[in-house]
């Protein structure tokens, strides 16, 4: 079990809603961005003297730009429907991690400055001035929301705390209080092209290495092309796919599917990142700038289609926002949605019958599936509502003999966030990440015990990294987490593939 200097939550067979314990997570704050990380994004380097007025002005500006913010700050009746829905509340007992508790940090200042009742009767309606202490609370608790939208499913008015958190982060950025992790990464995307700062040469090297590995493994020369002009498909995938485990096994899988489908495809060194951290910080301008790289890459390479790899928040921005932010994509082939998800492509090929599958290759696993929050509640796959639940499961079932779902109130639209989404996947928030993973860990542990589940598949780079890190804290094996296209990769039999059994899969036995 991993060591921690905080208490690791006990997993329960029948999860309980904890009693309120104020302030348990007040100390949790990510590192603040240095001026060098703020300025490339168009934000001031540090807190100015007139920060209070600037913050209120920024709030007013956002209220005029986002109907969601205006309506949601007005509409909450404090019914309590959301109070037991956030994984961070369930894992920490801190009432400011209840969605309404978190919203109220912003709402009390909104009421003080923008409503009649709050201006003249602040005590009555719980309105408060924006003090240094309140700002401090904002920084703590708006960096304890993974923007997973689980609360928005249960709110009778559809109030989405993600919208409030994004606005709060934008306000803080505009007064020089940015978060290091997100803002540094966005800077890297602008400078180098991806979140991890992998330059083109390193990328080319990595892909060449993958080609060698796959050929050695299968005897088939599967290509992982970079910057190939005139390819049909541009694949945009999270940069973790280039080297992290189990992400890279997913990338290998995409390549095999493309190879068998007989399509020409390419990655781009310019758009070598699917994730868009502009969303995490609530900045439309930055989100747009990051999105435009993909449009530019598609134009320069002259592709006909854009397909996204396995990534949760990235798929939200791609599916829900890309057309708006960087469209119109009228220069692409109109016969395909823009963009497509790799699972839509793979499922399509499976239905066409172009893939030769040997399910027994995954017989050493009993697989469950973690619905990534932003795929589940902020996007779709296929043409039917709910395709985002069916298509990944269809693909898994097509390549695995043993599949089991977790408890119904922890999957589909009620899925729990992994605990590391929304710009929180940083080591300075480790306590929050471990505690926030509790509801998912509980559901997982239950299917392990009841159904002998050995592996959990995911379709998000953040989920994969988060679980790899967090599973050991709960006494589970970090290798349990697999990419969906890793399962596909295991089971796909390439045309002309060596027939001898290879068993180089990392040992997935549990202890």
């Amino acid at each position: 079990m991993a060591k921690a200097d905080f208490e690791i939550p006990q997993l329960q067979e029948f999860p309980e809603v904890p009693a309120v314990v104020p302030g348990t997570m007040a100390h949790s704050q990510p590192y603040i961005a240095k001026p060098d990380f703020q300025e490339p994004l168009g934000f001031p380097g540090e807190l100015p003297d007139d920060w209070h007025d600037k913050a209120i002005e920024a709030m007013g500006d956002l209220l005029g730009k986002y109907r969601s913010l205006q309506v949601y700050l007005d509409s909450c009746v404090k019914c309590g429907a959301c109070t037991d829905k956030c994984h961070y509340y369930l894992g920490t007992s801190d009432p400011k991690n209840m969605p309404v508790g978190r919203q109220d940090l912003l709402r009390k200042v909104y009421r003080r400055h923008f409503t009649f009742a709050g201006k003249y009767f602040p005590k009555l309606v719980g309105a408060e001035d924006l003090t240094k202490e309140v700002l401090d609370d904002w920084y703590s608790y708006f960096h304890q929301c993974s923007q997973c939208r689980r609360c928005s499913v249960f709110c009778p008015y559809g109030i989405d705390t993600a919208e409030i958190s994004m606005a709060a982060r934008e306000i803080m950025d505009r007064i020089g209080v940015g978060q290091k992790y997100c803002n540094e990464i966005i800077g890297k995307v602008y400078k180098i092209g991806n979140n991890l700062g992998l330059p083109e040469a390193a990328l080319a090297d990595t892909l060449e290495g993958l080609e060698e590995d796959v050929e050695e493994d299968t005897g088939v020369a599967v290509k992982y092309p970079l910057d190939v002009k005139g390819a049909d498909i541009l694949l945009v995938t999270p940069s973790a796919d280039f080297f992290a485990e189990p992400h890279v096994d997913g990338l290998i899988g995409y390549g095999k599917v493309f190879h068998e489908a007989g399509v020409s495809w390419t990655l781009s060194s310019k758009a070598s990142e699917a994730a868009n951290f502009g969303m995490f910080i609530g900045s439309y301008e930055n989100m747009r700038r990051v999105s435009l790289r993909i449009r530019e890459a598609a134009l320069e390479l002259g592709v006909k289609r854009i397909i996204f790899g396995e990534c949760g928040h990235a798929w939200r921005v791609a599916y829900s926002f890309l057309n708006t932010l960087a469209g119109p994509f009228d220069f692409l082939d109109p016969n395909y949605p823009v963009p497509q998800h790799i699972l839509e492509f793979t499922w399509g090929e499976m239905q066409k019958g172009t893939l030769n599958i040997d399910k027994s290759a995954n017989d050493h696993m009993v697989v469950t599936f973690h619905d990534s929050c932003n795929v589940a509640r902020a996007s779709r796959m296929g043409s039917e509502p709910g395709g985002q639940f069916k298509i990944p499961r269809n693909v898994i079932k097509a390549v695995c003999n043993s599949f089991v779902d977790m408890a119904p109130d922890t999957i589909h639209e009620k899925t729990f966030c992994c605990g590391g989404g929304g710009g929180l996947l940083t080591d300075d928030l480790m306590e929050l990440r471990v505690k926030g993973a509790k509801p998912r860990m509980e559901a997982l542990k239950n299917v392990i015990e009841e159904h002998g589940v050995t592996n959990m598949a995911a379709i998000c780079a953040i989920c994969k990294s988060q679980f790899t890190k967090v599973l050991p804290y709960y006494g589970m094996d970090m290798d349990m987490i697999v990419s969906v296209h890793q399962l596909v990769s295991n089971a796909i039999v390439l045309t002309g593939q060596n027939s001898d059994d290879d068993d180089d899969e990392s040992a997935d036995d549990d202890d």
Partner: protein
Amino acid sequence: MSFLTVAFAALFYAATLLLVVGLARRIALYWKTPAPLKIPTTPAPVTQGGVVLRMFREVVFFESLFKSTKWTWVFGWMFHMALFAVLFRHLRYFQDPVWGVVTWVGPLFKYLAFAMIIGLLGLWARRLFVDRVRYISAPSDHLMLLLLLLIGVSGAMTTFVAHTDVVAVKAFFRSLMTFNFSDMPNLPSDPFIVVHLLLVALLMIIFPISKLLHAPGVFFSPTRNQIDNPREQRHIADWARKLEQ
């Protein structure tokens, strides 16, 4: 005319004006504030008709609340539906002639005042006894329940305990509505009707400046009223379009 009658006439004109103007301004604000991105909570309908249906289920059955907590749903739904039924019955105090259906349901609907009161008490009990809900409650949240409860109880008293002269009450409001004050009667002055009307006027006044804005708000909620079609249609706000130039 009695002082009470004149004062209440003025009060109800003022309250109506504040309610209508306040609400209209708020709705105009929601209307003109752009929603720059597609953010429906998915799975979401892919057609306009589907969205209408989703909104219908939300405002009539409180679908999302039902998914969330059954107790809050039971009390909340009971209160709101009883309130609407009771308000519908109240049309008989304002219409001349009264719709047949209002007359017809009247004797039945008057008992729904009790459902309304039970619903409110249930909601208040949750606010007091569930630690999470207690934590998020401001004084105004308790007072709002008290206000609604007193309106319900005082109204029920005039029907079930101390009958008020509803004919005079109706004539009073008909005069206000038709601006015909020549044969306006004095408003009955028994305490229950006075308290009832006073608190109703108060509710009308605070409606546009309180959390009661959830009523228009739900219709403007982008997570509920947007069509899931972002790949097919660009959804660009005017302020965002300016970034493209």
